[in-house]
Every structure is written in structure tokens, then in C-alpha cells.
């Protein structure tokens, strides 16, 4: 029966590809929200770079490429992702081991793998591979997941997370763990497990602090509570970021008028801290607009996931929505001085490549999943 189902779905997919006139598959609402975010990103990126048109063009090209990748992936059959999940996961783990063995050093951490023609961070692959493999695994198991299944999932999440933490890259590691666990959450993991897990986390947090976290990571956490203890060193970024935001006020200083950004008081104003530039220039009104846009995007993603017919599609789609939320929340929390400084970019606002491409690939998959619904609908 399963084979029969697979065959018919395959034939309808192929039929879709070859018989009917080629139609671009995408979710217009999500695309509209993303384009709007990208536009805001370019506008504030122009200001953040100090009116550097060359950099803005480069940013536009990257964002455009990310959109192209997203739309391309949206045209693929969703089952492909889940079937390929074990391969991708295995490949990713191999690369992480390779990084651990002979990665390039950058900013005191081994994150990059130089393949001669391309340098990239294998941990990015894991942002997709982990939720995919967890989805793939759970979709074929009775749900809600049993305790042994949960253990398997924890193993699948723990191995890459551990390898990434070795680099060390706590931010990405936590992101990978979170996306994997979100799949588990959407699969209906019993609340008692969730509460138990949270309790466990609280219990081992001190152990993490003393045995796992590096000094610079501890420093970042400490800075959060008392940035003034080192105003010219580690606390500088937080202090200046919060000053930039606060001085923006309700209406902001106006586009290209942010003094904190334009007088170079704000380090990394184009990348991780671009939100501070935006908040300084557009004020609380701008922040309200931007964050409602992000919230709408997350909710749209959740809605798409909820509409998906397949279990895989739903689990993975909802996890992608949460991944997007985590990006926004962690970056926003960092820039607003609520969370420690971790290198998490703000989607479509921060200048920078790989993380955006990964995220857009995930969104492309979400769109592909959403398109699958129609064909399954035919079958019933």
C-alpha cells in the first residue's frame, strides 16, 4: 500500500513536472513578507554601511541569490528532502569531524572548512540536516513519540550539537539543538517530558557554566548583567547598541541620521547589530513595523505547516517557523541587551551570507511542502 501510494505520488509529481504547463510554486503571502523584509534590510543596510552603495549592491545580490535558491527549492518535491535526510545528516557529521580535525581558525574558533574552491561552515548544513533527520525518523514512528524514540532523537541532535560546541560555537549549537527539539515538540512529545527536560536543563546549566563554556562565552553572559564593568572592552558593544536604540526614541532620528551608527560608535553595525542602526533611525514605530513583519512571517510559516498534509511536512514546516523565530528573538534579544552576545544574524537585515542562504533554503522547503498538499489532496 505504501509502495502504491509512493508510486502514485511520484507519477503525479512527474506529471506535474512534465505534463501540465510549468507553474512556479510559491506562497505569495510568505514571499511578499520576505520581500518586504529584504527591502527594509537593504534600506537600513545602506544607512548602516554609511551610504556605501557598493556594499548595498553586494548585499542585494546575496539576498537575491538567497531568494532564487529558496524559489528553486520550492519547486522540488518535498519527499526528496526527507529521503535525502540521512545522507545529508551523515555528510554533515563527517564534515564537522573534518572541521574538528583540520578546520581553519577564525576569531578563536574552528568553524570553517576550506575545500580549496569554497570556504564554508559545515555547522550551517546541520541547521537543516538536524530537523530533517529528526522529522524523517519520527514520521515513520508512532506518534506521540515513545521514550526510546525520544532517546534516539536526542542522540541524533546531540552528536552534531556536541561537535559544533567543540568548535566552539555555542550559538549555532543551541540553534541546532532547538530546531531538533522543536520537531519533537510538534510531534506531540508529552508535556511531562518537556517539563522534565527543562528541569534537567536548569540542573545542568551550572555544569555547562563550569565545564563546557569557554571564558569568552562566560564573559559575554556576565557582560549582559553588568556591561559597565568593561565599558571600553567587552561591554562596549552592548552599551553602544542600547544607547543607539534608546536614543532613537519613538520616531527615530531619521534615515541616515543615526549618530551612533554614522560616527562609528556601533561595531558590527551592518551585520549582527544592524537592528540597533534601524532602531536608532526609525525609532519605536519602525521597530513595531519590523517586528510585526517578522511575527507575521513566523505565523505564516506556522499556518503553512498546519496546512501540510504529510506528517513530515507538518513537523518540518513548524520547526522551520520556529527556527525563524529563534533567529529573530536571539538577535533582537542580543541587540536590545536582553541576551548574551552570540553570533546570530537577523534574517534579511544582517549583511552576511551563509546563514541567510540556509534559512531561505528551509523556507523554500516549507513552500515545497505546502505545494505537495494539493497533489495529496487529489489522491484522496
Amino acid at each position, binding site marked *: 500500500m505504501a509502495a502504491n501510494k509512493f508510486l502514485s505520488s511520484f507519477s503525479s509529481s512527474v506529471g506535474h513536472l512534465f505534463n501540465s504547463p510549468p507553474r512556479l510554486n510559491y506562497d505569495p503571502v510568505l514571499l511578499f513578507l520576505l520581500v518586504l523584509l529584504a527591502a527594509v534590510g537593504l534600506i537600513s543596510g545602506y544607512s548602516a554601511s554609511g551610504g556605501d552603495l557598493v556594499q548595498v549592491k553586494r548585499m542585494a545580490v546575496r539576498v537575491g541569490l538567497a531568494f532564487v535558491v529558496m524559489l528553486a527549492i520550492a519547486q522540488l518535491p518535498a519527499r526528496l528532502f526527507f529521503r535525502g535526510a540521512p545522507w545529508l545528516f551523515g555528510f554533515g557529521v563527517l564534515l564537522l569531524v573534518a572541521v574538528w580535525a583540520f578546520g581553519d581558525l577564525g576569531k578563536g574558533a574552528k568553524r570553517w572548512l576550506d575545500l580549496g574552491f569554497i570556504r564554508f561552515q559545515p555547522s550551517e548544513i546541520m541547521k537543516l540536516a538536524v530537523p530533517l533527520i529528526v522529522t524523517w525518523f519520527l514520521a515513520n514512528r*508512532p*506518534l*506521540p513519540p515513545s521514550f526510546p524514540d525520544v532517546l534516539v532523537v536526542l542522540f541524533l541532535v546531540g552528536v552534531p550539537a556536541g561537535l559544533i560546541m567543540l568548535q566552539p560555537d555555542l550559538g549555532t549549537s543551541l540553534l541546532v539543538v532547538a530546531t531538533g527539539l*522543536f520537531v519533537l*515538540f*510538534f*510531534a*506531540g512529545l508529552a508535556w511531562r517530558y518537556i517539563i522534565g527536560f527543562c528541569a534537567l536543563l536548569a540542573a545542568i546549566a551550572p555544569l555547562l557554566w563550569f565545564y563546557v563554556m569557554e571564558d569568552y562565552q562566560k564573559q559575554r553572559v556576565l557582560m549582559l548583567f553588568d556591561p559597565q564593568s568593561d565599558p*571600553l572592552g567587552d561591554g562596549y558593544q552592548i552599551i*553602544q547598541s*542600547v*544607547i*543607539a*536604540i*534608546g*536614543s*532613537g*526614541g*519613538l520616531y527615530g532620528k531619521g534615515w541616515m541620521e543615526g*549618530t*551612533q551608527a554614522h*560616527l*562609528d*560608535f556601533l561595531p558590527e553595525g551592518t551585520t549582527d547589530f544592524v537592528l540597533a542602526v534601524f*532602531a536608532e533611525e526609525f*525609532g*519605536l514605530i519602525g*521597530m*513595531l513595523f519590523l*517586528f*510585526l513583519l*517578522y*511575527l507575521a512571517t*513566523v*505565523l505564516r510559516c*506556522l499556518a503553512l*505547516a*498546519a496546512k501540510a498534509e504529510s*506528517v513530515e511536512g*507538518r*513537523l518540518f514546516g*513548524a520547526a522551520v*517557523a*520556529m527556527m525563524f*523565530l529563534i533567529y*529573530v*528573538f536571539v538577535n*533582537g*534579544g542580543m541587540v*536590545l*541587551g*536582553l541576551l548574551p552576545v552570540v553570533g546570530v544574524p537577523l534574517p534579511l537585515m544582517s549583511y552576511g551570507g551563509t546563514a541567510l542562504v540556509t534559512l531561505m533554503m528551509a523556507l523554500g522547503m516549507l513552500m515545497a511542502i505546502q505545494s505537495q498538499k494539493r497533489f495529496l489532496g487529489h489522491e484522496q
Partner: protein
Amino acid sequence: MGRHQTLLASRHTRAVFNRRVVVAAIVSVIAISGLLWRAAYLQVTQYEHFQTLADKNRIRTQILPPERGRIFDRNGHILADNVPSYQVEIIREDVRDLEATLSLLAEVLALDDTALADIRQRLRQNRSFDPVLIKSGLSDREIAELARYRPWLPGVEVASRLTRVYPQKHLLSHVVGYVGRINADEWKRVDRDNYRRTDYIGKTGVERYYEARLHGQAGYRRVEVDAFGRVLRVLEEQPPVPGEDLVLSIDLGLQELAYAALGEFNGAVVAMDPRDGAVRALVSKPSFDPNLFVDGISHADYQALLNDPNRPLFNRAITATYPPGSTIKMLMGLAGLDLGLIEPEKRFFAGPYYTLPNHSHRYRDWRRGGHGWVDLDKAIAQSVDVYFYDLAFRMGIDQIHAYFTDFGLGERTGIDLPSEARGLVPSRDWKRNVRGEPWYPGETVIAGIGQGYMLATAVQLAQMTTTLANRGERYRPWVVADHARSEPPFEIKNLEHWRPVLDGMLHVVHSSYGTARHVGEGAPYQMAGKTGTAQVFSVAQDEQYDAEQLERRLHDHALFVGYAPYDAPKISVAVIVENGGSGSGTAAPMARKVMDAALGYYGYEQADIEVRGGRE
């Protein structure tokens, strides 16, 4: 597993999933709301706080120090000037690694540990974003070296500043004074905003007395800077108001001549214009080079000045007090006439000594054989001690105190220079309060010839002479014109009484019997004066091992006061020569030179008058 069961399970799973999606949506809304709540807190509640911080970040107030006023003599010769020099400064907030910067600077500029400790001290006390001085008076080589290391020295600037220079060196140190770096005590006194970027403050002399006018008013400039401290634009500028240039009453040529006139002696010369109290020369010798103090005197130099037995830092013209000796005898005469105790023509037999009634102690005259019959004129001209012993006894200390005080003795003249001494005109009250003893009649006797407790400064004697020349009209001595002021005049009942006293002073110089008759020889004008000799008791207490010096230190101080021309006074002079021996032999010829010069008879060439030995 049947199809139905699967479907049921699938439905159940889906229901669970949908509930979880709702939970996720709620979590999303809460998370985003949390961020917005935080943003609202920062941007609305805390807006003003952060607004201020952002402005503080980008706006710096640079203090623009005013240029210190220069000081000129009455003919426009410069006495205190500002010349540009270069200094290194650092702005702490712009320095990335302070220790590395300091050690590199120490190497380039050859700073020793003491200098580094000073710099650290200044860095600690400094207000944010104000430059801190590292080293001043840079050589061209040091400037070049700094330029070479500039990329490794962020926050380090070479700034052009004005250094105070005294081109006349030692000549006017006791008038102009000097400036130096502001010390902790001075910081407490000054207006800090006005002095924030000021390097110097007047320490002595005119520099100190007129500090407020010389300093000027600091301006400021509000500039927008970037995170690296680079100035992007000027937002607001209030230019500094430069300090006032001061023109002194001092005549540089006369000062130079008066200084030279003292020869190898230590002492003081004060020359005034009796018509308004302007001080034309004010010499205290020996002197020192005030330039040593400007950028901080070295320990060795300072110790050398402090330990010099001649005490060059001591202002002998206004801070030192000396027994005025016979130079006050004409005041005694004037008081005696006013009180009716003497008459000009009335003759008095002056024997070799004077004794108080019922006492055996002999108060000796300076001339061993006495003067015989003398009138007031001769008593002044020959400085007859016995005449004034008798007069003083009859007048009593209370009257002496009253008249002398009216003449300005025992009180500061109020000259516009700091550290003026009061001198002393003794009285019964004074002795009771200070010494705890009653007044003895014998003390009245010696007060009559300016000995005993009586003390005066050179500037007081110059003012006294001016008052005599003006027949009671009194002026406050001044070096800056707007300090000029008339003082309450010295009044006597009968104006006719001025003439015999002043004639006596004339005859000191121009007569066959005056004590300083040789000094008037060949003078193209008439001068009036009075010699004096004061017994040494203060300075001689210093220890001194050189035999010849020791002997000289036991010599009396020589004094001379006088004015000229006699009928229309234009200059009055007081000369005090420490250990000079006699007033007539040492001090009077010096005064003559000063008068010649002041009246223009010898230009500023030194009058060639022999300094003779001998007593009055």
C-alpha cells in the same frame, strides 16, 4: 494495524500537532511582544537618558585656553612674553592600550620614572576627554620621532602651546614674578572651568597679583567626533577672551641701572615718581632667572636657590624689613615742630651722648665728639643722634607711633605686588601684646633714630620719601596704572614747618656740613636726601663659614632715601644696601646714579661717582 486505526492515530496526531502549533503561535507572539516591550522601555521610558548618552558620545567640549596677557615696561619693552612651543598630550579615552602607549612614549621621549609617575597622577585626576600633558618643550627631533611612531600611538597628539618667557631674565624677577604649573592648592582656589586647559598660574609678582586680568577667559568649542575621537564638525564655538596685556610703570633702563648700581652688594632699590606713586624701578638683589620656574623647576635648581646664603628668592624690596635707622629723623623733626617741642632756629647743645634723667646709661652719638650747638637744619643734615634722642624722649612713644603711622609706616603701602611686609612702628600696646612687657623709656630714645624695634620695607621708605617730597600728599605705590590712588594726606598744623625739614634734607647733600655732601658734587640739579645706617641682627644669624663673608655680614646696612629735583620733585628713591657699611658712603652714591638716570642727565649711562668709605 488497520487502516481505520492508522487514520485514527493520524487524526489524533494531527489534533495534537494543531494544538502545538497554537502553542507555538502564542509563544511567537509573546516572544516578539517581549522584544517590543523592551524596545519601548529603551526608546520611550529611557529615551532621555540614552539621548544624553548618545550626545555625550558624539559631542565633546574642547576648552580653548585664553592666551595669557603679556607684560611690558612703560616704554613698551617686553618683560613677559608667550612663545609657541610644542608638547605631547594624550587623550586617555582615545588610547587603546595605555601601558603600551606609555612605554613607547617613555622610550621615544626618554621619560624617567618620576616623569611617568607624574603622568599617571595627572591621568588619574583628569576629566574625561581632556588632553593630559606628557612632555612640553619638545625638540624638533622629538617631534619627528613622534610623527614616525604616530600609527602606533592613537590618542597621542603633538599640540602647539604658548610658553611663558621672561626675556629680561633675573632683572625683574621680583616685580614681574613668574608663572608655574598649577598646584593642588591653587586648583582649589581657581574657577576650574576657566582653568581646565590652562597650563600656568602666576606664582609671584605681577604675574600673581594680576592673575585674573592676565589669564583671560577660556572659550570652548563643541565638536562632533566619531568613535575614534576625530573631529567631524564644529557645532558651537565660544572663542576665548585673551588675557589683558599689562604695561608696568617700571622703566626697564632705570631698573637695569639700579640693579647694576648695587654692584656686588645685596640690597634693594625702589624708585618712584613722587607725582603719582608710579614705581619706576624696584630692585631686589641678588635675583634669579624666573624662566627656571615656568615649566617646573628641577629639584637641583630649586635646592640651589633655596640653599643660596644670599637668598635670591627673598624679595628685599617689599618682603624684607630693615631698621630704617636715621632715614626717619626728618619725620621726627616734622612731628617735633608740629607738636611745638622744637623750633627751627632754636639751638640745642649736642654732646657726645645723651642720658635719660635719673639714668646713667649713655646713648652715644655716632660722632664720638658730639656736634656741639645745632639747630634743626644741622641736626638733620648731620644726622645728630643726641638731638633726636632728646626730641624722642620729650615726644614720647605714643606721639611717635601716631605720627609715623600717619606717614604710612608700620602699614602695608598697598603696592600691587604680593607678599608685602607691614614693617613695624612699635607702641606700648604692641609691646604688651607681642612681648608681654611694658614699654621702657630707653626704647623711646632709640626709636628717635630709627633703631630698636622699628622696621620698614624699602617700598615704605620710598613712599615716605615721596610723601616728604610732596609735603604730605600721599600716594599708593603702583606698577600698573589703574592701581594708582591718593592716600589720606599727612597733615601738619603749620605748613611753614615743611620747609626747615626739607631744607635739612637738601643740606644733607648740598652743604658744607651734610653727611652726604660729596654725593651732590657736580649734580646739575638739587637733591634732598637722608642717610641711614642700620645695625644688623637678622641676616647675620645665618651660618657662614667663609671668613671674609662672615666679616662682611657683620657690617651695618647702609640706607639712603632722597628725591630730586629739590624744588620740583620728579623722582624719589630708597636704597638699602645690606652690610653696605655707611649710608653716605655706599647707599647715597647709588641713589645719585638712579636719580641722574631718572632725570635724564646721564642718559642711562652709569654716573661715575666714587663710592667712598667712612661714616655719616
